[in-house]
């Protein structure tokens, strides 16, 4: 498994921070330790040289020293004795540099009185060393800090040679080569650096261990978070740590459990929703099926029934009631002969070609087709105004008459070179008006009952008999219908006829025939002379 950049950064950050902190601490402690050791070493050497100078000064014969001075005294026994003493001190303490007694001359100069140096130096004057001033002025022994002069590093101590009265006769100067102090200090510094380096190495190792101790649980959390992101809500998050990371892990675990519950609830909700959608889809399919059934049934059910059911689906007003209607019967003349002469496809085409137009006309005039037989239709017209439905029934018959003639003309043209397969269609019409029982008729059979919605009674019966009397293309009317339409159509009395199953003779009227030609107005459509292009 590759290590993520985030983890690398966190490791490095923790290790680097730890090492940096340790490095700073070790450096500070090393510096402090080194400084303290340096002070101790120098202090020990200063005490040593100061002790030599002080002890030697106290051993000097101050009275004898007071008479010495200049080159002339170099041969005196007192001078030789004191020089011998100083040489013995130098020898005993293994001092490399000469010992000298200095007498103050004026404010800022000193004079060499006795020295283990070359004799030529006796009596020479030099500037008063700044560090020797307290010994001259306050009778206090002093020692310098290490100093360099290009030839090496030195320590100098100045001890007063006092009269019994306390007056300072001279100062004994002892100089000590301090180079070996520096050697000692360098060795100490190297040791300190070595210790510091060792501590840093240990700190580095510990810091890596520390970083892994911290990032280990974080890595576990990271992997757990990734599992959660991928939808694994079953993986238990366990970090055995009692610090903030442990609390974070506990928070993660609680979040996992909450998410698991939420997901379970969501899945349940989704399942419920899917079930509901499925049920809705089933219901929708049922509704669509019912719509299809309704659409298909509507083709077989009178339009008035469809409207009544749509107005009151639960309790449609289908019960029979008396209404004033006009009933139009139309029959195809010689239908039986035609159906015998033509093949079935051709006959179906003819029926569809003519009757499709008839249906449009009937609907346009508010008629309901109640019955269809192979060769005819029964159509009921109703309108609140009794005259209006009678006029519409005649108007529908007139239009069907015109359309039939127009279609006949078109078919004649189409079959001009194929006359053997063309028979003009002729329709005959019978119309009667008056009060009729309109509603559902129920026929009880051995199996299921049969219902039909129609107009029944004498008006319908007479209309059916009238059409039997009509000739080709002839529109015959009952007396009541004729009375109602005389203002709209030219009507003539055909005669009085006794009809089958009708008690009294009935006077029959005939609507004036159409001119024996086709007019554009009669068919209601324009016959085009040229092809017409319809752009999209």
């Amino acid at each position, binding site marked *: 498994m590759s290590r993520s950049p985030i983890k690398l950064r966190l490791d490095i950050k923790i290790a680097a921070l730890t090492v940096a902190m340790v490095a700073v601490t070790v450096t500070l402690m090393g510096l402090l330790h080194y400084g303290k050791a340096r002070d101790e070493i120098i202090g020990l050497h200063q005490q040593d040289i100061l002790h030599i100078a002080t002890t030697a000064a106290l051993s000097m014969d101050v009275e004898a020293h007071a008479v010495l001075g200049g080159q002339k005294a170099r041969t005196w026994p007192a001078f030789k004795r004191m020089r011998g003493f100083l040489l013995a001190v130098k020898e005993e303490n293994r001092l490399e540099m000469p010992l000298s007694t200095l007498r103050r001359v004026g404010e800022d100069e000193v004079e060499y009185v006795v020295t283990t140096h070359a004799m030529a130096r006796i009596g020479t004057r030099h500037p008063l060393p700044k560090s020797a001033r307290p010994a001259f002025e306050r009778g206090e022994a002093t020692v310098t800090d290490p100093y360099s002069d290009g030839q090496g590093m030195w320590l100098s101590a100045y001890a007063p040679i006092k009269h019994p009265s306390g007056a300072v006769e001279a100062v004994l100067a002892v100089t000590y080569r301090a180079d070996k102090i520096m050697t000692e200090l360098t060795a100490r510094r190297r040791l300190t650096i070595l210790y510091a380096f060792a501590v840093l190495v240990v700190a580095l190792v510990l810091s890596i261990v520390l970083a892994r101790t911290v990032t280990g649980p974080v890595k576990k959390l990271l992997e757990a978070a990734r599992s959660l992101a991928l939808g694994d809500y079953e993986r238990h998050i366990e970090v055995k740590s009692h610090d903030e990371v442990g609390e974070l892990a506990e928070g993660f675990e609680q979040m996992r459990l909450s998410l698991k519950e939420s997901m379970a609830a969501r899945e349940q909700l989704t399942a419920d929703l899917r079930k509901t959608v499925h049920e809705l889809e089933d219901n929708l399919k049922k509704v669509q099926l019912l719509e299809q059934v309704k659409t298909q049934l509507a083709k077989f059910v009178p339009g008035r029934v469809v409207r009544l059911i749509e107005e009151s689906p639960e309790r449609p007003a289908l019960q029979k009631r008396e209404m004033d209607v006009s009933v139009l019967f139309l029959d195809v003349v010689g239908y039986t002969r035609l159906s015998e002469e033509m093949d079935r496809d051709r006959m179906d085409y003819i029926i569809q*070609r003519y009757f499709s*137009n008839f249906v449009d006309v009937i609907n346009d005039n508010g008629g309901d087709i109640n019955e269809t037989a192979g060769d005819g239709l029964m159509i009921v017209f109703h309108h609140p105004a009794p005259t209006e439905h009678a006029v519409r029934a005649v108007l529908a018959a007139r239009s069907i008459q015109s359309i039939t003639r127009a279609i006949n003309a078109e078919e004649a043209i189409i079959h001009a070179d*194929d006359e053997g397969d063309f028979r003009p269609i002729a329709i005959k019409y019978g119309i009667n008006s008056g009060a009729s029982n309109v509603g559902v008729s129920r026929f009880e059979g051995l199996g299921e009952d049969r219902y039909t919605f129609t107009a029944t009674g004498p008006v319908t019966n007479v209309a059916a008999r009238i059409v039997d009397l009509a000739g080709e293309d002839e529109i015959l009317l009952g007396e009541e219908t004729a009375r109602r339409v005389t203002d709209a159509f030219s009507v003539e009395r055909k005669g009085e006829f006794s009809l089958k199953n009708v008690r009294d003779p009935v006077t029959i009227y005939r609507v004036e025939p159409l001119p024996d030609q086709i007019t554009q107005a009669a068919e209601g459509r324009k016959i085009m002379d040229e*092809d017409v292009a*319809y752009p999209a």
Partner: protein
Amino acid sequence: MEPVNLYTTPTCSQCAKTRAWFSAQGISFTDHNVVADAEALKRMIEVSGSRNVPVIQIGDRVFVGFDENEVAAFLAEQ
């Protein structure tokens, strides 16, 4: 889009439905009145082998009568 030719007559209600359907689909077409145009009638009989209207010719494909689903399926394949 293949050229669309309709062979119709003025009184044919199926022909009127066919014209309305193609217009509604935004498909341009040429309407031939076979009772006014003898040449169109001849072509219609040639391409369809039928004297029933309407005849719909889309490229080389010919339909006698108008079945909306059948024509729509054919156009969808194009």
